[in-house]
């Protein structure tokens, strides 16, 4: 139900990310190829698919993390806000506008406060009062503030798994990102926390565009406006999420996967 309205809205919004003929390879092994897609502003875009489908490689390519992987080669065109990221000199500025949440929570070994203040400080914000506001806002939006407000000085890496994952989200939000990419965020998180984070994401779509990579097809169904199905390094299908489950699909494999017949 929630999808109807936003789907209409998404179609009307400007294009945030446009990917054309994307091909990612590691040496001779091709991780992903033939990807063409457009993601609209304020859309939650789901990517589903089994392991080795190329989902994580896709996110890495968007964030230009290929720079750090000597073997990784990215061909094709990725336009973020209309700019071709493949020929971008300042990849740091690009990455700072994209927040990433990893499958396993990464609480950095510094205080909860410093975890969230890290990116603002790198942006040059040093004023304590200003940082306090940012930290509280980001932790609140990540549904973690109430649990940690009395121990902001505790080490982020000693929080529980679910808390660390929300801390990771708060840290990503502290970047004031245009785009939030979540890579199977619920893998190491209990179901209750997963639902809380899903609620957070529904709120966040007002402000940011979200790419949600997930191995739970029902999670994509609950959250994503449109969803792409990746399989063995190819993008099999892209469509309005509900259609993958109930409407017409172009490829039989899509229906098989969402109904749990393989994978």
């Amino acid at each position, binding site marked *: 139900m929630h999808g109807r309205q936003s789907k209409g809205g998404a179609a009307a919004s400007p294009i945030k990310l446009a990917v054309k003929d994307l091909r990612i390879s590691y040496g001779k092994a091709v991780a992903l190829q033939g990807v063409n897609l457009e993601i609209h502003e304020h859309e939650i875009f789901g990517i589903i698919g089994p392991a080795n489908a190329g989902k994580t490689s896709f996110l890495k390519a968007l*964030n230009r*993390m290929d720079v*750090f992987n*000597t073997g990784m080669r990215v061909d094709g065109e990725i336009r973020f806000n209309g700019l071709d990221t493949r020929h971008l000199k300042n990849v*740091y*500025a*690009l*990455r*700072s*506008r*994209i*927040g*990433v949440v*990893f499958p*396993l929570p*990464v609480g*950095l*070994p*510094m205080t909860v406060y410093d975890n969230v203040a*890290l*990116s603002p400080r*790198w942006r040059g914000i040093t004023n304590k009062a200003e940082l306090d506001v940012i930290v509280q806002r980001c932790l609140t939006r990540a549904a973690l503030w109430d649990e940690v407000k009395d121990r902001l000085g505790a*080490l982020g*890496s*000693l929080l529980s798994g679910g808390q660390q994952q929300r801390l*990771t989200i708060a*840290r*990503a939000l502290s*970047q004031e990102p245009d785009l939030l990419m979540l890579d199977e965020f619920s893998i190491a998180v209990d179901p209750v926390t997963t639902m809380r984070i899903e609620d957070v994401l529904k709120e966040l779509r007002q402000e940011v565009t979200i790419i949600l990579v997930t191995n739970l097809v029902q999670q994509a169904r609950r959250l994503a406006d449109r969803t792409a199905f990746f399989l063995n390094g190819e993008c099999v299908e892209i469509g309005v999420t509900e259609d993958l489950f109930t409407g017409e699909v172009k490829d039989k494999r899509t229906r098989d996967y969402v109904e749990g017949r393989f994978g």
Partner: protein
Amino acid sequence: MFQASALNKRNESVQKLYRMLFGMMTLMLIAPVLLILGTLIAKGGGAISWEFLFTAPTDGMRSGGVLPALLGTVWLVMVALMLSVPIGVCAAIYLSEYAGDNWFTRTINLAIINLAGVPSIVHALFGLGAFVIFFGFGTSILAASLTLAVMTMPVVIVATRESLQAVPQAFREACWNMGATRWQTIRRVVLPNAITGILTGVILEVSRTAGETAPIMFTGAVFFTPFLPESVMDQTMALSLHLFVAATQVPGIADEVPFGIALVLIGLVLTMNSASIAFRMWLRGKKKW
């Protein structure tokens, strides 16, 4: 249901056997340490006095104290540390955090391992040729410390690199994904979490530097001088060489003097190590994951 089977019992007794074996080996480790310390204290303890620590040797080293040698060793260790720690740590950061895995870095790694394997007397000859003669530093603390620094650099590099690589890669990736440069990541996340391991390397280096004799005898340490070192261009006495001289080159010297010198040397090394261990513990209390 929970009756121990014959196999259970065998596993249990084998496990006990191994536990005992490992425990005994550990005890055997302690034995030489205790024996060395015990002998030194028994035989050299009587020589130790304020006068022994704070006066120069007199009467052809047969009486008096060890002050010039003690200060000389402190100078040598400090100058060697100041030279080798910054260079070694920076090189390790480059190798671990910046350099890719290619023939060039593999060659450098090989060179470091080889450098660690070169006997100290060879380092001594190198120091004599390079620092004393070629660079014209003469026999001086500077030349001797440079030689010691070259010799102990591999320890610093390897210890630093190991502790940098013990920092989980996920921490780096998290920072890079936020738009941090490599240096920002190193500065804020990698170094603070590797610093205790780096200090361990420094502690090892202090011990080795203070005890070395061969590299300094050609390059900066002298048999005897009544003067205390005043600059890095001075020659100096050193405890290790002084110990060798007192033990083998001075006829009629009291037995307790060489043992006393050895005790001072060990005491100095332990004091320096305790300081860095205390510093390390203080840091560890602050940072933990």
